[in-house]
């Protein structure tokens, strides 16, 4: 790897580990950064001259994109264990370098405990950087975080113990630590009841707070929806159709809120048809009973069948009278079927002029364009049923 910087080379700190030099070169040449990194490490192993060259490249080559300090970036990476191991290696290489250059004669008794402690420290530090938001979200520490912090603490303590042991300082240290531990234990036993009560109190308080928050949310929702509707119902008491429509709309809304069965934002065929039915019901004041069996994500053909069903519902609501319209949807692996049935007067299908645009274009035509079909069944006196089918 060369430090002579061609004009087009840019460091890539977002994808790099340290300064993004290797990643930048890899992007320039168009190969996997891993290859460049292997080459770089080989160059380090051969003579160490690559390290100053890397530093020079870091300083001279401008960065592409936003750059945060390398240290901070290392600490906030996702792969905690990798970071910890890297921190251990960095410490080892730094100390060995100092020894090689005779700057500071580090003996092995200090070196390895320091490496272990640095690894553990990095683990703990990483957790402390990421933990707060998760804690806020879940209300308690995730198991993984606890495990990592424990491992980190064990490493730090282990490193310190090894250091004391190999330097023959463990025995005097024990003389100091033992009384401290005994005193701490005694204090813990004395304070434990208060502490437990405090923790329980906090938990109770949190539960109470959550409950009151939920109650406030429910109250707010009822206020916005149900109470408003009840006020409207009182005002329109002289118009039974309007009152019934208001009540049904509110019922639908409240049910949707109570059931809340679908993941938010995801629109399915069933929910789209229910929405269409609610809309038609609101516009035409005819109750619509929706029954769905199975469901599927809303794709292009689903949109077509919903639009056709909506048109059929509008048609039905013009003739249905006060009787409810039935909308039945069945989704299986083989086909989607929709039935719209009203209990209006019905008609003889053959008598209808074939150029009736509403039914022809918006229902039959739309279904045929999407590979489906629409059939109208009607008998005078027995209502009308529109059948929409799309085979998968």
């Amino acid at each position, binding site marked *: 790897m060369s430090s002579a910087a061609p004009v087009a080379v840019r460091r890539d700190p977002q994808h790099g580990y340290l300064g993004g030099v290797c990643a930048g070169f890899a992007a320039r040449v168009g190969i996997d950064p891993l290859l460049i990194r292997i080459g770089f490490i080989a160059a380090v192993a051969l003579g160490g001259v690559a390290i100053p060259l890397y530093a020079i490249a870091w300083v001279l080559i401008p960065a592409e994109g936003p750059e945060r300090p390398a240290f901070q970036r290392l600490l906030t990476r996702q792969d905690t264990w990798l970071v910890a191991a890297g921190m251990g290696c960095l410490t080892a290489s730094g100390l060995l370098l100092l020894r090689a250059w005779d700057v500071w004669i580090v003996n092995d008794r200090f070196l390895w405990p320091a490496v272990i402690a640095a690894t553990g420290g990095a683990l703990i530090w990483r957790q402390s950087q990421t933990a707060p938001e998760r804690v806020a979200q879940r209300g308690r520490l995730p198991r993984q975080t606890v495990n990592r912090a424990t491992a980190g603490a064990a490493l730090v303590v282990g490193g310190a113990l090894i250091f004391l042991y190999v330097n023959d300082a463990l025995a005097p240290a024990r003389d100091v630590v033992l009384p401290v531990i005994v005193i701490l234990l005694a204090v813990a036993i004395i304070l434990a009841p208060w502490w437990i009560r405090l923790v329980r109190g906090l938990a109770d308080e949190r539960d109470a707070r959550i409950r009151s928050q939920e109650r406030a949310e429910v109250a707010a929702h009822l206020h916005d929806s149900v109470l408003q509707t009840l006020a409207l119902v009182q005002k329109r008491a002289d118009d039974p159709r309007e009152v019934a429509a208001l009540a049904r709309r509110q019922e639908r809304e409240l049910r949707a809120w109570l059931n809340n069965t679908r*993941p938010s934002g995801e629109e399915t065929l069933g929910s789209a048809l229910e929405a269409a039915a609610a809309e038609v019901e609101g516009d035409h004041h005819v109750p619509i*009973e929706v*029954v*769905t069996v*199975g469901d599927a994500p809303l794709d292009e053909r689903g949109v077509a069948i919903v639009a056709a069903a909506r048109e059929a519902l509008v048609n039905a609501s013009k003739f249905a009278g006060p009787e409810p319209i*039935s909308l*039945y949807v*069945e989704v*299986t*692996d083989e086909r989607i079927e929709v039935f719209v049935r009203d209990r209006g007067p019905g008609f003889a299908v053959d008598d209808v002029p074939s150029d009736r645009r509403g039914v022809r274009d918006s229902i039959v035509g739309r279904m045929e364009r999407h590979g489906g079909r629409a059939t109208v069944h009607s008998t005078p006196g027995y209502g009308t049923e529109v059948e929409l089918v799309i085979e998968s």
Partner: protein
Amino acid sequence: MTSVVIVDDHSLFRAGVRAELDGLVDVIGDAATVEDAVACIVALEPDVVLLDVHMPGGGGLEVLRQVAEKRPVQRFLALSVSDAPEDVIALIRAGARGYVTKTISGEELADAVRRISDGDAVFSPRLAGFVLDAFAAGAAPVEVDDELEQLTTREREVLRHIARGYLYKEIAARLNISTKTVEAHVSAVLRKLQLSSRHELSRWAVQRRLVD
């Protein structure tokens, strides 16, 4: 006239149903709590009990269980605003012979009560949808061969018509069978629903509950 006891914790609703059923069936009593309901049903021995799904103290399910011990022949019709399929299916599995929603008209309700009293099953469009969903063909495990675990083609066809809003006599006309045969199919579905050990029913209910 068919005698009826209404069990519902909403006094307004009880009064409304009483008024609607007035002259159509004989409402001989009502109850607002599980305890009152059990005592009242056992004492009055009505032909049919109109049972609310959701009530404090265990709901309709608890009433069903307690009455079943003292008066096993008692017939129940579940009447609820509840949309949750698992609640409705649980009530049917516990012994209710039908389920209708509270928006049903007085005449239709009276008709349903009379049919329950005759020993038939009453499926509203919504219940038919729930049952079709529970017995969905795609969800059937391969090894299922017990006839209890599956609906016949005819039974599915009848349920689909109920879900589409057809009355029994209309279904009979469309399928060229007698109304009695339609009722027999619905009763067969009810029996399967109550006796099926099919684990899909519970798994399906759990799935529904999980996404709540």
